[in-house]
């Protein structure tokens, strides 16, 4: 499904601040699976997502998605088959546009944007139905500007918009980190529902070990740009996972509650 081959990436090369993140890094992600990515800050999780999505370029290595080398594609071109939800709930929506306008834009994803009117009244009912799957009552707030929604509502909408056209790969970058525990759980449940319904191959960065174990099929732990653990979620317990994480002696030790 996704193959990352011999990836190398260095920030600020040739300066005092040179930082090598990846050196000949390799990764294979299986189709239809949800892979949880764990690791401390600075271990390369988000850099990996940025490279896969095309937001930044690697010096060396190949990114192969479904047999196609996507290295030459720009970020917006890769977006046609890669969906991404960011940590910031406002990053996946246009805050000054209404829910209806946001969802209408994302419905046009991968198609040609023209000088036709965006809002199609005939589609409103269909959008209401899609929004109702979130159970947040957003279907009754179609004309509310997104900036007036709560973080959880905005993030759920981002998630819905990122998965509307069923991407081949979905990147979830700590997408519940900015939410309170209750909303976070709710968004995680909606996430699982959406990726299972559409069988979307997913990579999910999380600092929450429990969530990663519960919602992922496979767990990968990164440290200094290397995979230090690659295991099926069913084959490891939360305690074991925490003990491996804390044994690396970096950052502050993770507790079960994180």
């Amino acid at each position: 499904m996704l193959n990352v081959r011999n990836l190398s990436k260095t920030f600020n090369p040739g300066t005092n601040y040179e930082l090598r993140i990846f050196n000949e890094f390799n990764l294979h992600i299986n189709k239809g699976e949800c892979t949880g990515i764990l690791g401390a800050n600075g271990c390369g999780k988000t850099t990996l997502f940025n490279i896969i999505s095309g937001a930044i370029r690697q010096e060396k290595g190949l990114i192969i998605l479904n047999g196609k080398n996507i290295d030459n594609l720009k970020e917006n071109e890769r977006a046609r088959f890669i969906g991404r939800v960011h940590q910031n709930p406002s990053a996946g929506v246009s805050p000054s546009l209404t829910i209806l306008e946001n969802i209408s834009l994302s419905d046009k994803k991968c198609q040609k944007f023209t000088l036709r009117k965006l809002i199609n009244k005939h589609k409103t009912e269909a959008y209401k139905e899609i929004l109702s799957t979130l159970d947040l009552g957003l279907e009754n707030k179609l004309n509310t500007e997104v900036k007036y929604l709560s973080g959880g509502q905005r993030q759920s909408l981002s998630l819905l918009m990122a998965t509307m056209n069923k991407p081949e790969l979905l990147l979830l970058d700590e997408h519940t980190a900015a939410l309170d525990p209750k909303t976070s759980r709710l968004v995680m449940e909606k996430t699982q529902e959406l990726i299972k319904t559409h069988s979307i191959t997913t990579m999910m960065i999380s600092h929450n070990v429990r969530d990663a174990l519960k919602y992922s099929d496979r767990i990968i732990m990164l440290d200094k740009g290397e995979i230090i653990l690659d295991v099926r979620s069913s084959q490891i317990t939360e305690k074991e996972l925490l003990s491996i994480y804390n044994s690396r002696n970096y950052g502050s030790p993770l507790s079960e509650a994180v």
Partner: protein
Amino acid sequence: MNTLILTSIEQGLIFSVLAIGVTITFKILDFADMSVEGTFPFGAFLFAKLISGGFTPLTSTLLSFVFGTLAGLLTYTLNIKLKIKALLSGILTATILYTINLRLNGKSNVGLFSYSSIYEGFEPVIILILMVFGVKILMDTFLKTEVGYLLIATGDNETLVKSLGEDSNKYKLIGLMISNGLVALSGALMAQYQGFAEITMGTGIIVVGIASIIVGDTVLRKQRFLKLTTRAITGALIYKFIGALAIDLGLAPTDLKAINAIIVIMFLSYNTFNPIKMKKADELKVVEEVKC
């Protein structure tokens, strides 16, 4: 007084077109485009060049819009392709246009009294209302299209536009070109209205554009359903009227620039010391004191 009202309405309408243009860059795209200072006289000098070259007033006016869009293309190239900061890109475009404006007709002041204008045979106010109404309808319609919404989304959140598979720079280009086209159109309308094109007519024009937006937003703050174009037009009309009123009350025309700046300061300070906001802040203070 009647002449004062009519003149300020007419000038307000001309500046409405400018204000709509500035709205696209400053408000929709969040792009501080200073090239307006050069594009406004560029429209005036282009009109002078075209009308003296035998084109009809209407064709010359419309071509001023078309050529004005090229100023947007230049700012875009400097900012996006050459990675020069937005503010500096606009200033550089305005500086280049200064020379182009002087070169166009070979002088810094071109009289247009011997040529016909689009106002000929009509009351200028009627032509201007039709023109502004036309621009407003076109802009409102455009902003409701798929491309128009992507223009708004680009100013709002470029990441979203990229995630929709679109190149957000394309929409910056479209916005900058339309904006500069409208500003040049406004310059052409002004040149015909005052009967000459003059090199200094762009100086401080960006303040007029931004002031119109601020005044419009302040006056119509509660009418959230009103479109951005309606706000810009209302703002330009009020702004121009207050300035004219100050002159009528005895201030010298040379004081106009300072008056304009004071109007902007007044409206901005009204936003800061808005009684509703202050009331809310006071209530908040009371609540916090109670909590303590």
